[in-house]
């Protein structure tokens, strides 16, 4: 891949890169482009009748690429939610694994059991989640407690959720517990202003999730979720505090959900096109692309090449996954317990 050295970007107005190298910046852009391409693929396959369901994270690319860059592979733990394709990719998930999930093939990480984008990989430090809102928060607090108990300084848990999840009792219980025990954990709220059809104003009476942090006795930080470098910085600082024994942080990244909740939802029933079009003007993907070109991190040609490469990778992963078999009917019965199980003995 063609990258320029940062030295050659001297003549361009400097942007705050918070210590990120050219290579890291390009990697973040790649994650964002890959996220968008794979997501579009999911929607296409659904419209073609090839898969029953897909969900979308368009608008979350910047926060997820930034947060993933702050994650230490092989050491940290990610407890995501179902709208975290970019984060999952950013910590090492492959396009093949994504397509296997979309097609619910036997080779999928959950063996075709779970909805798309509900990945679990012990190798990546990626926790298994359900579709149930906020149910993963206590798990994340428990994982962080295990790290602390074992005195594994240098490790931390990154747990993510949308704005809607903050209303759940389990969210409250998890933040409270993490604060009491000063756990190595970062609570990252991807506030996209919509919980299916419920706007933020019906989710909470004041619009700043991070302001709840003080009530638990932890720092609360707000960050522009459309700016991947700012998101990297906010999450990296919080993760570093967590890894070094400084306790939990609540980070709120303000982003926006550009698409409907899922392929089963039609957002025109509850929000205006004007609102969505207005927010599209802040689309983080072309903005970051421009920023890197203007600053000489990448040439326009290199970006075009990157996009071609991602499309090829997506196409190949699609073909490979589609050609793979479904799980077998007998796979329904495995892994209920450690041993084979019959209800009567």
């Amino acid at each position, binding site marked *: 891949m063609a990258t320029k050295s940062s030295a050659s970007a001297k003549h361009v107005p400097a942007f705050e890169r918070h210590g990120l190298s050219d290579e890291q910046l390009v990697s973040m852009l790649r994650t964002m482009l890959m996220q968008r391409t794979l997501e579009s693929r999911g929607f296409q396959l659904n419209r073609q009748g090839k898969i029953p369901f897909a969900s979308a994270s368009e608008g979350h690319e910047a926060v997820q690429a930034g947060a993933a860059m702050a994650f230490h592979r092989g050491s940290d733990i990610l407890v995501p939610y179902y709208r975290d394709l970019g984060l999952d990719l950013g910590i090492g998930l492959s396009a093949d694994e994504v397509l296997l999930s979309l097609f619910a093939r036997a080779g999928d990480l959950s063996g075709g059991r779970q909805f798309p984008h509900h990945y679990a990989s012990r190798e990546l430090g990626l926790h298994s989640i359900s579709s149930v809102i906020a149910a993963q928060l206590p798990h994340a607090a428990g994982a962080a407690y295990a790290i602390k108990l074992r005195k594994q300084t240098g490790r931390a848990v990154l747990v993510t959720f949308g704005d809607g999840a903050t209303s759940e009792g389990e969210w*409250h219980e998890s933040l409270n517990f993490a*604060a009491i025990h000063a756990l190595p954990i970062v609570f990252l709220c991807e506030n996209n202003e919509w919980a299916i059809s419920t706007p933020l104003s019906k989710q909470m009476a004041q619009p700043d999730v991070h302001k709840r942090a003080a*009530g638990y006795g932890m720092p609360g930080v707000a960050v522009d979720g459309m700016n991947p470098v700012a998101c990297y910085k906010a999450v990296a600082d919080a993760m570093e505090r967590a890894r070094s024994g400084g306790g939990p942080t609540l980070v709120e990244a303000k982003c926006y959900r550009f698409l409907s909740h899922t392929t089963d939802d039609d957002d025109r029933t509850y929000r205006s096109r004007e609102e969505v079009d207005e927010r599209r003007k802040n689309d983080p993907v072309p903005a970051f692309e421009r920023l890197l070109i203007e600053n000489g991190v990448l040439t326009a040609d290199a970006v075009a090449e990157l996009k071609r490469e991602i499309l090829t990778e997506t196409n190949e992963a699609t073909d490979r996954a589609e050609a793979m078999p479904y799980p077998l009917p007998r796979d329904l019965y495995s892994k209920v317990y450690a041993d084979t199980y019959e209800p009567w003995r």
Partner: protein
Amino acid sequence: MAKTDTTVKTLARYGLTDEQLREMFRNMLMQRQLDNRGFQLNRQGKVPFALGSEGHEALQAGAAMAFTRGKDILAPYYRDLGLALGIGLTPFEIMLSIFARAQDHNGGRQFPNHYSSKKAGLMSFSSILAAHIPHAVGAAYALKLRRQADRAVLVTCGDGTTSEGEWHEAMNFAAIHGLPLVMLVENNEWAISTPLDKQMGQPEIWKRAEGYGMPGKRFNGFDPIETYGVVKEAMDRARGGGGPSIIEGMCYRFLAHSTDDNDMTYRTKDEVVEHRKHDPVPRFEALLLEQGVLTASAVDAMKKDVLRETNEATDQAEALPYPQASDLYTNLFEGAWQPWQ
């Protein structure tokens, strides 16, 4: 930990009359007397269980005075003897609950101090922490929906309950809808054996209010007059359409959690003795004497009267019958009911 000034020169009364001050004091005496009676009866083997609210007297007497009888709704928890008395329950009703007699509001079904009285506006609640907070929010929603602008819901809980998910969900909903509700937290620093610093990462519950978008305030729950002032302000705001608040009264649990608990397994005698120095009941007595609201002889007479009433209520309740075995089967659903039809 609650700290009070040792002397009060000019009494800030928030409009409370001498009569109201005396009524609050009598409530506090009655609360302590009935609490002790429950523990005595337990030691005598006459009742299996009792709960104490010693240390909460000032907070509860003050809050009850801010409650408008016949209008407001109280959603209390199980350590609210003084609040129940203060909104109109009688010592006799308390003793029926302690003795689990048939005539008890709950027909002897619930633990002591789990009252419910539609007449008094006191909502039924279980022993499950925080389970009643959404109910209070639902009741407040009903008031708002019906445009009953002069009514509000007073919901109480201890510090431990604020850790429950339902507490959070309920506060959030109340704030979104600007409901006529006052969340009164009786922070006594102990949840059975769990101290406040194991209950939350920072010790000030009222600070959570901002995160929900509502006012929050902390006050000295050993001072019944200050309590009244803060609760009254919050209830008036709720009644006037100004929405909910979280108010936190600092008090202390002088006794063990219940007759089944031994607090010396988890806290020191010294800590309890230190807090006892601020005991709100003798302090309020001294204040009222100093301010000339009561004379020493009037205090004596009041104490005698409270003891007499407690004794009579005890005897009356004890003499009454238990519910019958057949009462186990009533009031499951409306009408008679069997699982198979």
